[in-house]
């Protein structure tokens, strides 16, 4: 396990590359889905005639 984490001495380069990729991909997915959900809610409110939120 320690050897795996060490990445043959290149841990400082391999892990940031993979972790940054995971973070970027996950945050694109999360922000995109969250924005869609909030727009769906907002639209439902406007269409139901309850108008704008204050």
């Amino acid at each position, binding site marked *: 396990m320690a050897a795996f984490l060490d990445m043959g001495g290149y841990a400082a380069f391999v892990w940031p590359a*993979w972790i*940054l990729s995971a973070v970027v991909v996950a945050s694109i997915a999360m922000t*995109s*889905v969250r924005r869609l959900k909030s727009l769906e809610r907002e639209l439902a409110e406007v269409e139901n005639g309850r108008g704008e939120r204050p």
Partner: protein
Amino acid sequence: MNWHRYASPANFKRLSDRLMPWTAGGAAVFLAIGVWTGLFASPADYQQGETVRIMYVHVPAAWMSMFVYANLAVAGAAALVWRHPLAEVAGRAIAPVGAAFTFLCLVTGSLWGKPMWGTWWVWDARLTSVLILFFVYLAYMALNSAFDEPERGARASAVLALVGAINLPIIKFSVDWWNTLHQPASITRLDAPAVDPSMLVPLFAMAVGFTFFFLAVALVRIRAELLERRLEALRHARVAGSTIVERA
């Protein structure tokens, strides 16, 4: 302009509902295979050691940066020629995703360059042209939202997307046209790839996973853009309606 009829959010919603399980599922499956084979079930390189594992995120991210841009250019052309609102909305929806992949490509490349080349960055043709691609994405996003009417922003940024497409062949062939520190193509060659099959599996799994991920996220983001425009239109209609009522 009555764009609702053409872009038809209801139709797009049906389409994206049908495609979503396949695109999101495909992304999950292929990225899982890519992570597993890329980090655990593939050998270290005989020259590069474990740093070769950076390739499995760097190269697919680089491919995506260009693939998304090609989509952006096609959407731009469709927006200009047919004035199709879905094309306008698609460009706006996917540009930040392309910018993110380009950013990943640049940073992971830098992280790979330091141990293997001895430098984080060098102004060679490949690296510089990809940096320009990143700036073109940013310019596209800025221009797209620089106008009060979304149609004007869409048209201006569509022109930029088409002009910027000249950068794609420059990036692709930069390693052949100029002497670069960056290596030439080792996968997309006329003869067989110069990479061992044990390393091609994680490379392609990540690339296919990123592609499915891009499609799934594009569906979500296009839907959000369509809702946003519909919301805007409803609010305008409501404001106009209430003004008439007040006057009466």
